[in-house]
């Protein structure tokens, strides 16, 4: 990875300035693949890299198990090499006219992102008997080359008028025009029959299985905008904004929308009646705003029928022909998603600005939210389209408090500061077309992130397990469907003798209830810093005060062999598994697949195994020393510092009581490079701890 940046501006005349920023960067990334199952590598290691299997045979060849999973890492042949080159250039001008009262500004940005992929899949040798070499992955032996380019340009032209009038009136008026356009083109070719396993070019692929794919997408948006700022003696501040935007992603009759906003501020502490000494309170500002913004960030062509073309996996009349099939179903209409926010805020400073505090409260109403339509019966026969189907209400707040001071320590000043930031929000669906309010979809009144599930009621015992089959007919405690003591027992919330989710609607949810919420609440950060006598220190903590996480069906790291019996058995489960001697253990009777299978009793969301994924993490801690001026000036340096910096040194989460193998910051999607990311929970490249010893020198 490397990057180059250049910046320059030139004052052509005393009223015209031209500037240019150029940036180029290139990034390379190698993602290993295995050809045994061909899936994501993290997931595959989790479920197939059997820890007790040998990697090598005595004669040095790979074992079958190794070749099937991580064995190729020894050779490092299979994998995808990604390369991304970004080029961006912005050229602009500023023209000052009318005695610097009027400015005309314009800029033009061109950006090109070129992505290249090279995927090599070759067979991996192994040996199951001395002297006999066999291979896995023989069906591939292919090379895929993919080039895609995203060309983007954006242009803004706007004029600004700014003036301060007698009597303390300040006015700034801005108006302009904005245009953006992006074009994606792609080309991918796969061909098999590599003449040797180190082939790196398509010329060395001789097979007749050739897959080609093109690709093209273009979108454009244009908008006109204005802004008016008015201020009076720094006491009263008023801003009015407006945008009129159009996007190619919407049909012509729903293409344009106007998004106005207005905000005002009042610096109470600047009023003549304000007599509070700044020793006590030095600043007070009250803010408020109301306005709307549009979001048109959706796929291009979503309102047009498209017949996608792909290659068939079948041999029909001697070839694998191209095929197409039914186009996407169109939503009833498609337009901008609009979020209208009402915000109120206050900024305060006390004790000669040593203590500062600010706070914001907001209410945001998102209308025409772009989301998938309600689940339809399977006879609909295709994916329900996405459209402007929902309204959402978000209420949130944010507060920052900061203390900054100094004192003398051994005759030298000791500066220190502490800043705490905390924010929170909740969002509620206020409108969604959900017939019967099914729980499988959004419904009006739903708090985003809410988790419906069953409440645990201990385990079945020898005395009552006879009732389990009738009561929990929807679930299985093992593949055979047999119920035994130590199996999960759910609470019969509606006392009807059977455990189910009723009609799975808000009105009839059977024995389910809301057991938690996955929205991160009370996100906070804490920064401490100090310096004294050329020594400096800083640290940053970050965390989430409340969030629930349900370990999904494929979270093998959490479930261990409850997910698949051939998984690793996590150390954290030792001593926590039900037995007649340990009837109150955290985990139930030991059985494979019951977390993975759809009807497995651990597959159902339930209160006991819902994890409290709140956490606090020491993101960064740094200590260092600035070499004294007297010392460095002799070495002709202008500054030099040595420091030790550490990232992610420590973390704590209530979840760690159950498992330390998962990180609350990395429990969502997995293996996003090679698949949809839904194949497991927490199968990701771990968050790394790192330590840096550094020296910074400025000449």
């Amino acid at each position, binding site marked *: 990875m490397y990057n180059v940046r250049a910046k320059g501006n030139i004052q052509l005349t005393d*009223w*015209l300035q031209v500037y240019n920023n150029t940036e180029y960067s290139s990034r390379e990334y190698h993602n290993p693949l295995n050809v045994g199952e061909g899936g994501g590598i993290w997931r595959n290691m989790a479920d197939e890299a059997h820890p007790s299997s040998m990697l090598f045979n005595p004669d040095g060849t790979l074992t079958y198990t190794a070749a099937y999973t991580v064995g190729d890492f020894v050779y490092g042949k299979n994998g995808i090499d990604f390369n991304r080159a970004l080029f961006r250039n912005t050229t602009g001008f500023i*023209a000052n*006219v009318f005695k610097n009262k009027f400015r005309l500004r314009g800029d033009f940005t061109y950006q090109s992102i070129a992505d290249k992929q090279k995927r090599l899949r070759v067979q991996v040798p192994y040996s199951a008997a001395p002297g*006999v070499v066999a291979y*896995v*992955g023989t*069906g591939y032996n292919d090379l895929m080359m993919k080039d895609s380019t995203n060309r983007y340009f954006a242009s803004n*032209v706007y004029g600004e008028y700014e003036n301060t009038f007698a009597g303390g009136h300040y006015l700034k008026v801005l108006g302009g*025009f904005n245009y953006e356009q992006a074009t994606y083109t792609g080309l991918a070719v796969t061909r*098999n029959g590599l003449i040797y396993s180190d082939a790196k070019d398509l010329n060395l692929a001789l097979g007749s*299985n050739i897959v080609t794919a093109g*690709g*093209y*997408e*273009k979108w*454009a948006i*244009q908008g006109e905008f204005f802004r008016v700022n008015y201020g009076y003696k720094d006491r009263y501040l008023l801003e009015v904004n407006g945008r009129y935007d*159009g996007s*190619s992603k919407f049909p*012509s009759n729903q293409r344009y929308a106007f998004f106005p906003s207005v905000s005002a501020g009042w610096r109470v502490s600047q009023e003549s009646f304000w007599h509070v000494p700044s020793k006590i309170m030095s600043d007070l500002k009250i803010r408020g705003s109301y306005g709307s913004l549009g979001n048109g960030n959706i796929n*291009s*062509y979503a309102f047009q*029928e*498209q*017949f996608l073309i792909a290659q*068939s*996996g*079948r*041999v*029909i*009349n*001697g*070839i*694998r*022909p*191209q*095929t*197409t*099939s*039914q*186009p996407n179903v169109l939503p009833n209409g498609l337009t901008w998603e609009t979020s209208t926010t009402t915000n109120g805020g206050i900024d305060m400073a006390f004790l000669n600005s040593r203590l500062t505090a600010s706070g914001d409260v907001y209410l945001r109403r998102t209308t025409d939210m772009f989301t998938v339509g309600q689940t*339809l*019966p*399977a*006879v*609909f*026969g*295709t994916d*329900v389209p996405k459209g402007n189907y929902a309204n959402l209400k978000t209420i949130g707040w944010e507060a920052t408090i900061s203390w900054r001071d100094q004192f003398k320590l051994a005759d030298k000043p000791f500066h220190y500061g502490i800043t705490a930031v905390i924010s929170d929000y909740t969002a509620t669906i206020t409108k969604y077309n959900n017939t019967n309010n099914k729980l*499988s979809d959004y419904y009006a009144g739903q708090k985003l992130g809410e988790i419906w599930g069953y409440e645990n009621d201990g385990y079945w015992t020898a005395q009552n397990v006879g009732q389990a089959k009738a009561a929990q*007919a*929807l679930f*299985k405690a093992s593949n*055979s*469907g047999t119920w035994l003591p130590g199996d999960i027992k759910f609470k019969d919330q509606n006392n009807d003798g059977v455990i*189910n989710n009723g009609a*799975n609607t808000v009105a009839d949810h059977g024995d389910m209830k809301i057991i938690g919420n996955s929205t991160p609440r009370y996100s906070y950060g804490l920064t401490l810093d100090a310096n004294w006598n050329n020594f400096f220190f800083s640290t940053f903590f970050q965390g989430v005060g409340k969030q629930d996480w349900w370990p999904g069906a494929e979270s093998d790291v959490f479930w261990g062999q409850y997910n698949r019996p051939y998984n690793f058995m996590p150390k954290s489960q030792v001593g926590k598994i039900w037995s007649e001697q340990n009837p109150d253990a955290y985990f139930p009777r030991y059985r494979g697949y019951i977390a993975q299978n*759809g*009807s497995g009793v651990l597959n159902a969301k339930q209160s006991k195994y819902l994890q409290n994924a709140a956490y606090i993490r020491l993101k960064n801690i740094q200590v260092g020393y600035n070499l004294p001026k007297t010392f460095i000036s002799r070495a002709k340096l202008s500054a030099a510092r040595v420091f030790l910096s550490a990232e992610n040194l420590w973390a704590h989460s209530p979840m760690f009581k159950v498992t330390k193998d998962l990180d609350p910051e990395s429990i969502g999607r997995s293996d996003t490079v090679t698949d949809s990311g839904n194949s497991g929970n927490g199968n990701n490249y771990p968050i790394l701890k790192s330590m840096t010893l550094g020296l910074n020198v400025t000449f």
Partner: protein
Amino acid sequence: MIQQYFSRLQRVMMIAGVAALLSGCAKNLDQTPVATADKDAIFGSEAGMKLYTNSFYDVLPSMGDVFRKDAMADYSAVSAVPDFLRTGAYNARVADGWDWKQLRNINYFIVNCNNPAIDSTTRNNYVGLARFFRAYFYFEKVKRFGNVPWINKPLDINDQEGLYAGRDNRTLVMDSVIADLDYAADHITLKSDASASQITKYVVYGLKSRVCLFEGTFRKYQTSYNLAGTAPALLQQAADAAKKVMDEGGFAINQTGGAGASYRQLFISAAPVATEVMLANVTSSTLAVFNDANWYFTSATYGNRLSFTRTFINTYLNIDGTPFTNEAGHETQTFAQETQGRDMRLQQTIRMGSYTRTDNGKTVAAPPVFSYTYTGYMPIKFTLDDTYYDGGTTGTNSITLMRYAEILLNYAEAMAELGKLSDNDWAKTVGALRARAGITGGITAKPTVADNYLKTNYFPDISDAALLEIRRERGIELVLEGFRFHDLIRWKAGDLLTKPWVGMYVPALDTPMDLNGDGVLDVCFYKTAPAEQVKGVTYINVSPVLSSGTNPQVLSDDTHGEIHWLDNVSREWDDYRYLYPVPYTDLQLNPKLGQNPGWEL
């Protein structure tokens, strides 16, 4: 002065520039897809219609599906009892198959294929293709669920009535299926296909005979539906459709390999043997399309170790056409003895006798291996002889989906059910298939004596000698081709799925046996582990109790007798299992569908 002049010019330029931008950019807000096709491109040309209809082929079973279907069949002993046959293990919650994407894809085509620029013969050909696949789709749905909603258009997202409709009666659905097949037969223009990978007119008739035979016999034997009166007409349609293939299709029974190999050639050839194979999933080494049959049928862990039961193997006739089960003492014959002098399809279906394989270029003996088989009768029908193919999806043999032999059997069965089977019909169908397998007797005239073994062990309610023999023939000829489960369904013989999984006869413990008669000992059964083991012999513990619990593999008389596999896990059959349950979540989405009786939760 100069400053003002320039600024004015600048402004003029800017205003002109902005105006140009505005007008130029507004046009750019009209974007149409480039990398995808639109409706005119698809329905306005034959190439477009062909492109679309290629997607219908995914309605057919995929490469690995066909030979896996018989994992739940009365003659298949497998590593674990299928959940469907275990009490409490299968219910609406784990049920699946309620998937309708392919139907909408087909209906969208049928409804939109009306571009007048294309001549009607061409259009009707592709609509015929679509209706063939719709019939195929619905036939699978009816077999699985019974009544299903009949939908003949792509449902609109706001079509509450259509989306939330209840199920239609199977009689309505099957009438529509037959109407689709009749249309397809009339309008598909392709009459033959040497690649056996495309739908021809005669593949349509073939499917029609399959569909009508299923529905005709289903209605005849599943008497609780009170539809027996409609069975004869369906059986007649089955016979007529089959006859059409026989008279006009140009197919013939493959005999090119002689009696000892012709049958298996159909299943291990890379290119379909298109004289007999009418439709296949075609493999191609060059196009990297393979199957995993070898892996499935040889690996101890990858598949479910399917082997045949002895009850079924006993139905293979002697080479002279007499029933093996009429021989006195056949019950106590060893594997090596009982496999001699039989219908030559036996040696092309299981490992026995002189069967050999190739291992790294060397020819090696290949007796049944007890690290795979539980009964001794280990399938080779779909496996290639080189061990190279055993460890992955590398199989290069095309997998048959429909072949002429099935059509002959459909014809014979429909005619027999109608009471119209003649000696000539017999000779052309069952007789021809038996002759191909080297059988010398009973191939010209239909049998007159009902076989007692079949009556006792399989079909106690059938007394028609020919019908019993046709059912015998169908089991043997089409074994592992995915027909058996639904044959049992339509014959109302589901209880056969609970028959014990018995294996070969073991005369004594601690006595190594040579299974393939090559003089090398292969397997030995014991209750107490012998102090010394003979090299190369697989030792199998058959003591009823192991340290880990009940031994699923025992002998019927403790120290000798037939192997019994998994008697300790009970299998159940009740009449409600003739249909699968509608998945629970689908029923919740539309309660009007109603659950199939017996599957309510």
